[in-house]
Every structure is written in C-alpha cells, then in structure tokens.
C-alpha cells in the first residue's frame, strides 16, 4: 500500500502542472477582451489601457503565464479586479459554504440513493422496486433550477416555513443556517441520489447472484446480515468511485442551485468571474477545485483498500 500511495502522490505534481497550463491556456481562448469588459459601460480608453497594463494583457502569453505561476507557487492567486479582493480570501470565504452544501447534499444523496438502491435490488420486481425506479427517473429528469424554484414557491412563499434564499453562517445561527441550506442541499442531493440508486441497484443485483452470497445464505446467516454485511460492502466499491466523483463536482460549485437559492459558493463566484472576465478569480478557483478533485480521487482510491480486503494484498 505504501508503494501504491507513493506512486499516486508522485503523479499529482505533474498533473497539477498540466492543469495550470490548461486553465491558463483555455482562458486565453475566451473571446472578448478582459480590459474592455472590466471598463464597464463608459469604455474610457484611459481605463482600458490601465487595465490592460495591470492584467499584463500587453505581454505575450508565456510571460503572463509565468507571472501567474510565480504567484501561485508563492501562494498568491492574484486579486479580483472587479471587487478588489485577493482570490485566496474569496476562496476562504466561499469554501466553507460550498463544503457544507456539498456534504449535506452528499449525505442526502447517500441516504436516499443507497437505501433505495438496496431495497430495489433485494425486492426486485415488487412495487418497492418500481417505486424506487420511478423516483430515480424523476431525480434524473428534473432540472435543478426548476425544482429549486418550485420548492421556494411551496416552502417559502406559500407555507412560509423556510427562507427563500440567502446564507447564514452556522457559527452565527445554526438553526437559520440549516433552514437556509436544506432546500438547496435537497435539490442537489436529489439528482445525485437518483444516479447512486441506479448504480447501487445494479451492483447489488450482481453481487446478490454471486457464489459467496449463496454460501453466506447456506451458512444460515440472517438475510439482513447477508445483504448489509456481505453483499452491500462489496457492492460499495463502484459506488464510492461514483460518490467521490459527484462530491468533487459538488465542490467545484453548483452553479444553478447556488444561483436560485443565492448561496454564495464557488459556482456563483466562478460564473460571475467568467462573464466579467475576472481572470485571476477564474484561474484561482479552477486551480483550487482541480486540486480538490485530484485529492478526492486519491482518497477514493485509498478507501477501496478499506472496504475491499482483496485489494489490500
């Protein structure tokens, strides 16, 4: 395992370097001049020239890349030109919000998705199975944006139970925080739960038909022990991979859901930055989320070892 871990860790640095080139290079392909966009409605030529100089837009691509990478290596991701805040500060500000939303959404997805998947596989062909499949179809086919607005109209406008949007820090008021986060977390979790349910179901069906499960049953073990301890544990391997990928996606921000519920997370930050050509923010946040994604994948690989004894050898 130590060797494996070392090999995986060694592959991270070149990957990250490649990511920086990709982020910076792709951004240059964005049409539109950042200085022109940031100069706003008035389009003062003096302002445009000043911004061009400040953003080093007058320098060739490799020089600009070197400026940026030099800063990144020293932990300086640059500054948002639109709102005059360091990018690292923006990341620190948004990260807890995004993490909380991702964790809550993932918990909802895991609880609903795995439970529905297991029930559907074990009770294959029954009404429960059909109900779980209909739920999955609904989750997969409902756009987040629409579901979000519908939930707001029901729970905030009609019933008045939950706030329509906004974010309150859990350290300020935990109850208000949970009230504000539950709807967006559900919207996000609902879609992922559907995917997880489908995968859990097929993985469980495969495992339940295998020889070792038959042996377990033949030993006279209780059905719930067979299902939960023997079958589910094995079926979890592909689900963990999927879960980690979905969680990584959540960490890069849930644009539409954040927009609807006005949750100040990464999604909103990056979309606004792209539209405003706030290059430093786009680069900084993408680099950060890419790093998080790579790390999560590594963790998922390590988790296989814990759930699947065969891989430890």
């Amino acid at each position, binding site marked *: 395992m130590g060797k494996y871990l070392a090999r995986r860790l060694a592959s991270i640095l070149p990957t990250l370097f490649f990511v920086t080139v990709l982020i910076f290079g792709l951004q240059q392909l964005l049409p539109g001049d950042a200085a022109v966009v940031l100069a706003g409605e008035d389009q*003062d030529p003096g302002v445009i020239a*000043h911004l061009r100089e400040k953003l080093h837009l007058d320098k060739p691509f490799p020089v600009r890349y070197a400026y940026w990478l030099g800063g990144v290596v020293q932990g300086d991701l640059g500054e948002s030109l639109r709102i005059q805040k360091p990018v690292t500060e923006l990341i620190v500000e948004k990260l807890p919000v995004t993490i909380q939303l991702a964790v809550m959404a993932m918990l909802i997805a895991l609880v609903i998705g795995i439970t529905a998947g297991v029930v559907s596989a074990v009770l294959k062909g029954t009404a429960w199975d059909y109900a779980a499949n209909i739920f999955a179809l609904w989750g997969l086919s409902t756009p987040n944006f629409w579901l979000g607005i519908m939930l707001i109209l029901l729970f905030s406008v009609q019933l008045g139970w939950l706030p*329509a949007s*906004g974010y309150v820090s859990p350290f300020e008021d935990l109850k208000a925080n949970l009230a504000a986060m539950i709807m967006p977390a559900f919207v996000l979790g609902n879609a992922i739960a559907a995917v997880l349910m489908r995968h859990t179901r097929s993985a469980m069906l495969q495992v339940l038909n295998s020889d070792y499960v038959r042996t377990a049953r033949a030993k006279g073990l209780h059905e719930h022990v067979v299902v939960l301890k023997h079958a589910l544990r094995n079926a979890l391997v592909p689900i963990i991979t999927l879960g980690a990928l979905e969680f990584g996606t959540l960490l890069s921000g849930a644009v539409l859901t954040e927009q609807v519920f006005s949750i*100040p997370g990464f999604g909103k930050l990056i979309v606004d930055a792209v539209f405003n050509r706030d290059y430093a923010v786009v680069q900084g946040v993408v680099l950060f989320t890419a790093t998080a994604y790579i790390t999560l994948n590594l963790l998922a690989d390590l988790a296989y070892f814990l759930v699947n004894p065969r891989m430890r050898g």
Partner: protein
Amino acid sequence: MKLRLAFCLLFLVSSVQAQTLRIGLAEDPDILDPSLARTFVGRIVFASLCDKLFDLDEKLAIVPQLATGYEWSADQKSLVIKLRSGVTFHDGEKFDAAAVKFNLERHKSMPGSNRRGELAVMSGVDVVDAQTVRLNLSAPFAPLLAVLTDRSGMMVSPKAAAAAGEKFGAAPVCSGPFRFVERVAQDRIVVERFANYWNKGAINFERIVYTPIVDATVRLANLRSGQFDFIERMAPSDVPGLKSDSRFKVARIVEIGYQGITINVGKSDQAQKNPLGKDPRVREAFELSLDRGAIVQVAMDGEAEVGNQWVAPTNRYYGKSAPIPKRDVARAKKLLAEAGVSNPSFTLMTPTTSDAQRIAQVVQAMAKEAGFDVKIQSTEFATSLNLADKGQFDAYMLAWSGRADPDGNLHTMLACKGPTNYAGYCKQDVEALITESRTSLDPAKRAQAYDRIAAQVSKDRPVIYLYHRNWLWAHNAKLTGLRTVPDGMVRVQGLKMN
C-alpha cells in the same frame, strides 16, 4: 409572567427587524470606490454610503446635496460651489473645500479612474475658503452639474482614501447616511446608520442589507416570502401577479437610458458589405417595418415608453422636429425597391437575456413583413462588446443605463471619437452641434442644438432607438417615502417602514 416575557421578546425581535431594510439587487456591484466604480447597480449602494455635491429630484432637476449653491462665472469657464457646513465623514474627518479639491483631483488622477472622461474639461480646483471651491474649466461644459450628481460628485474621506490607496473600495468611507460595515462577495453588503449624518432626521432605518439575486423570479419570491422589503428591477411579466397582492406595491418611473439597435454604418469594412450599413434607405425601411408600440406591448408587457431618440419624448431636450415614425410596411417595401434590394439580410447581435431574445424575435417577425431577413445572433456580453469594438457586426441590440444630462446619452455614442461609438458614425455638422450643445449653458440654445441633431440623426440612423424602460420596483406595502427618480437609484432618505 412567561407570556409577558414572550410578548416583550417578540416585540423586541420585530422592532429590530423593522429597523433593517433588506434590499434585493439584480446584480452584484463592482468596486465600491466612486473613482473606479463602473456598474449601474453599484450606484444603488453608493446612494446610501456616499453623498454627492448635487442630487437629482423626481423631475430630473439638479438640487444641492453636499453643496448649498453654485454660480457660473461670466465666461462660463469656472464654477463656484458653496458647501454645506457641519458635515463629517464616517471616520470623523471634516468635509470642507479641501476635501472637495482632494476628491475631484483624485477622480482625475487615480490610475484606472472611470471619472476622468466626465471631468476632462476640469483643469483645476481652487479652495476659495473652507466652504467654497472653484472648479476651473478649459471650456464651458454644460453637463458638469449633472456629472456631479453621479459618482464624480461623490466625496470620500481624504484621510481614509490616502491610507487605503487603490484598496479603498474594499471598505469605503464617505459622508452618506449609512456607513460601510461588511461585504461578502455575491452574498451581501451591509451598511449601518451614521449617527453624525447631517440630515439624520430623514433616516429611519438602523441598517440596510443589500443582497444580489440575479434571477428576477427568485428575487420576487424572496420579497413575497418576506426575506426582502424592496427589490429593484422586477420582471415586467411579474407586475400583474403582484398587483393583486395587497401586501406589496409596485413603483415605476421611465428610465433616463434607452434601448436601441446600433447599426454599423462606418465602424469597419463590414458596414459597406451590408445593405443596412451601406444604404440609408434600407435603414429607413427597416425602421418603418417596426411597430414600437407593439414591441413594448409584446416584449415588455407595456412597461416602457416608446421613443426614437437618446432621451424619452417627455424629456425637455427631446427633439420635436423628429417625431416617432409610424409603422409603414408599404413604404418600407417601396424604399427597398428603390434601393434595389428586395430581400436584404443582416445579422442582429443581441445579449443572451430572455428579454433581449424576445425583443429580437418580435423585431425579426416585423421586419420580415417588409422583406428583411434578420438573423438573430445571441452573443454573450463580453464577446459582443469585443465584436462591437472591432466593428464585426451588422446591427447590435444595446441598452444604455443613461445619464441625467442628455450629453451623457449622446456624446460617447455619436461623437466621432466617442469611446462607445460602435456605429462608426461621424458627421462634421452633427459633431459641431454636439460640441455646441455641451458648451452652451443656455437651456433654450441647448434644446435647439438637440433638435437639429435629432433631425439629422433620425435620417442617418446610426442607432434606431426603440424605447425607454420603466424602472420597476416592488416593495412591502408598509414601506413609505419612496422617491421615484428616473436615474433608477434607491434614495434612502425619507424611507420608512410603518
């Protein structure tokens, strides 16, 4: 006893809430530094933070704010401004003539300042005495007072500005009714009542929380669920639904800006490659194919005033010799036949918003009846600006948020070297008239100049002006004291929750 305590607590909670005004904004503002700021929405936040030398009233008349009066010199090349006494900045610094000099010079000299263009004619500022300043100009400049009702007239604390340098916008210190508390990007901007405000009697809230929510439906849902007390720029289609709810009120005023179609008549070679840019008769035919009233009804739910100039027909500087032309498809077809093009085709570049799409589709359908083949090219804003700047377009649907003085809606778009002259329009007689309109302080003479400009521009059609939107605000019915000023700002003085 417990019940009484509960009632007391409830009263306390509700009174604290009543002292906070929660405003839903349509966008997240940019830098909160009056010199560097660029966005319309930022000005809404400034309205509570930073007082200006002058302000606008509901009729667009210029009224004093931090100034108490002004006087032009005989040659109209200097403006003496008397200042209000007893005004302090949020950091306790005194507001006086030296502070005004500092601010105006900062607007002019700060790298990246967006105010430099507006104050280009200002050659220097003299401190006459503690409460009097003199602005020296290189030439008479009629829009100057109007310019000082916007960000150029906003005064920041010289001490705080000098200390913070270009980071000032992260925690602005001004002299407005509210002082800056915190900003969480894309989440909220919080300001609290400034105890030493010179006009504190007009302030009835302890705090204001500005929250940007881009989607109009979600912004409205927040108002309806009680999260907001006030929202700006509601969608016109949402107005009828809210009218039936007595808990809310809708306020509206026609904007000072406009919505129009800019035509590439000389920005690049592309102008000559397209019949629309090449031949004024084709542009006239295109305009005659449009029914502005129907566009406003269909695409804007009637929430706009039709227009054909850079100012609305109700504006005192509207050129009466160029009235709004009526739709005339037969004449449009005749003009196209005269021009020798029976089925002209051109691309209309539009923003990606659903409003813009709707308008473009209505325009497309109307123009088709006259024989035009309009191709809609929905383009992301940053890209469209770039294409417009390079002249890579035939026609471009563009809105302008407007300035109080008509010059602000005209000069930068139609003067030969105007930075947003995307049409590439340049006519010496119009140029001379624009110069005359901005250098004459006599309203009658200015009106005459604008009338002549309107007559010419409406023939040349570098821009086909369509309408002027209503600023649509929705608010809690208990909120009183709202002043509807055409610049679209939310003035907090006098606002009260009953």
